[in-house]
């Protein structure tokens, strides 16, 4: 019998702890596959952040470092400066990247650090049980915005990709989604491209990935996917915000 689908070598044979219908697992797989396809798994160093994916250093087969909440881009900077010929990526949630780590992500991009950032935007704090995130939509109910996010009192969502695209050091910025297979294929291309931009030494790359959190959204997995497709995308339009125009070699 011929295997048509198998575990990628980029992920170790360890069951993840993510909830059913959570897209963190899909994004892990895309990153792992991209490292294998580009043949950089053996010389990639990843940085886990603080959020539901705090321990994904156990899952990825490459060398991994766990960073304090929000500090992954600074930690990645330290690693990359020591190993400029290796690939370095961070995996961060929206609380990690767009709240407590806002300074670190902006300045890593401003310096044009040659790292790749995979930013899972699920519009909520997953790990700590569903508080409002900087990316929470207006009107969205969370445990700390129980009557829906009120822009008057709680401000407006941050569109990270649009903001990062204003920085010349951020040479590649794209927003993708994981809500259906067509979009997953597009997301995979973006993940690969982020690594390739880094490998080519062009600068900082960030892929914002619209993700689900069925558990804290209070939705079942299919409904969560629909909510991304119908509601979240309105606030966070998919697309390419900065494009370094790589030659299509690989």
């Amino acid at each position, binding site marked *: 019998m011929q295997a048509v689908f198998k575990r990628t070598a980029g992920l170790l044979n360890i069951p993840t702890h993510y909830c059913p219908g959570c897209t963190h697992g899909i994004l892990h797989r895309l990153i792992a596959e991209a490292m294998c396809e580009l043949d950089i798994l053996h010389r990639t*160093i990843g940085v886990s952040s603080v959020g539901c994916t705090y321990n994904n250093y156990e899952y990825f087969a490459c060398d991994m470092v766990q960073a304090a909440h929000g500090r992954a881009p*600074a*930690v990645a900077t*330290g690693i990359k*400066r020591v190993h400029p010929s*290796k690939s370095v990526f961070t995996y961060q949630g929206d609380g990690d990247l767009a709240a407590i780590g806002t300074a670190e992500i902006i300045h890593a991009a401003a310096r044009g650090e040659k790292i790749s950032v995979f930013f899972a935007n699920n519009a909520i704090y997953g790990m700590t049980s569903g508080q409002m995130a900087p990316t929470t939509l207006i009107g969205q109910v969370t445990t700390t915005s129980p009557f829906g996010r009120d822009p008057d009192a709680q401000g407006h969502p941050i569109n990270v990709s649009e903001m990062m695209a204003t920085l010349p050091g951020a040479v590649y910025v794209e927003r993708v989604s994981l809500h259906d297979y067509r979009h997953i294929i597009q997301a995979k291309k973006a993940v690969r491209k982020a690594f390739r931009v880094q490998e080519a030494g062009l600068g900082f790359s960030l892929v914002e990935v619209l993700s689900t959190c069925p558990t804290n959204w209070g939705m079942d997995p299919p409904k969560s996917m629909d909510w991304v497709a119908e509601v979240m995308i309105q606030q966070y339009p998919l697309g390419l915000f900065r494009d370094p125009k790589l030659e299509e070699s690989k």
Partner: protein
Amino acid sequence: MEKRVLMKGNEAIAEAAIRAGCRYYFGYPITPQTEIMHYMAKRMVEVGGTVIQAESELAAINMVYGAAAAGARAMTSSSSPGISLKQEGFSYIAGAELPAVVANIVRAGPGLGGILPSQGDYFQATKGGGHGDYRNIVLAPASVQELYEMTIEAFNLADRYRMLALILGDGALGQMMEPVVFRDKEPIDLPKKPWAVTGTGGVRPHNTITSIYIKADVLEAFNRKLQAKYAEVSRREVRAECLNCEDADILMVAFGTCSRIGRGIIPIAAAQGVRVGLIRPITLWPFPSDVIARAAAQPSVKAVLTIELSCGQMVEDVRLAVDGMKPIAFLGRSGGNLPTQKEILQKIMKMVGR
């Protein structure tokens, strides 16, 4: 004759770091230590190293965390308010068992305080500062030559024990100029770091650097391991200097800048018929409790005087060391002021009933 170079204390730290094989410096400007970064910015270019002016002290210490995880000798430096921001990183460096070197050229606090010298960060340096059960090695130099030598020593200790070594100076030491001899005691032999993240190279399982242990038993076992390491450091690395302590009437305990003032008291007091000894802790953690206890136990010793540029911090450790054997007196100045020889002498004379 050995070549002597006149330099600022801050510059001596930077030169020493480079000679110790440090090629990564991450900092954020703050008086009175910014000359470290100025010097690094020029000198690192000559040796092919990296200097990043980070967006904050938080970012700088986390860059050190990353560079140390990647296997390099890396450092940052700051002064008190900046060191407060770095405490998060200190705790993570301890939890991930990474070697790192930090210099704190202390200024007067609390708050923004002032830019003049102080030793008011003693508690923060020696008792944690960040969260959790951890220790840092704390070295207290008292001259520009010692800033140089102890910076090199800090890198060696950090690597040997996989922990953070802190150089606790103050604004006076950082800014003063003194001749330095670049005496490299031993050829710098960078240790192998098989645990570092370098990429697996496809030849070994992945390395992971982390400080999180969700299961109580696993974390407790890790804490026990850390404590065993700290106990070993306490056994092997205590450093102190004793001057004139034998048969002293009064024992002074002072570190860094204060020890320089204390040193000057010894002959003046002797001329007035009082034998004064000085114990200078060189490692503030591990603290030389036994050295102090032994000296204080001598029958000649009437009392112990702790002198600090603070409102009384190290004096608590001195009190614990002496453990009620002898009375403890304290003389402290703060806000950037230094105690004068006159006021120390007056205090000593009062202590001996004169």
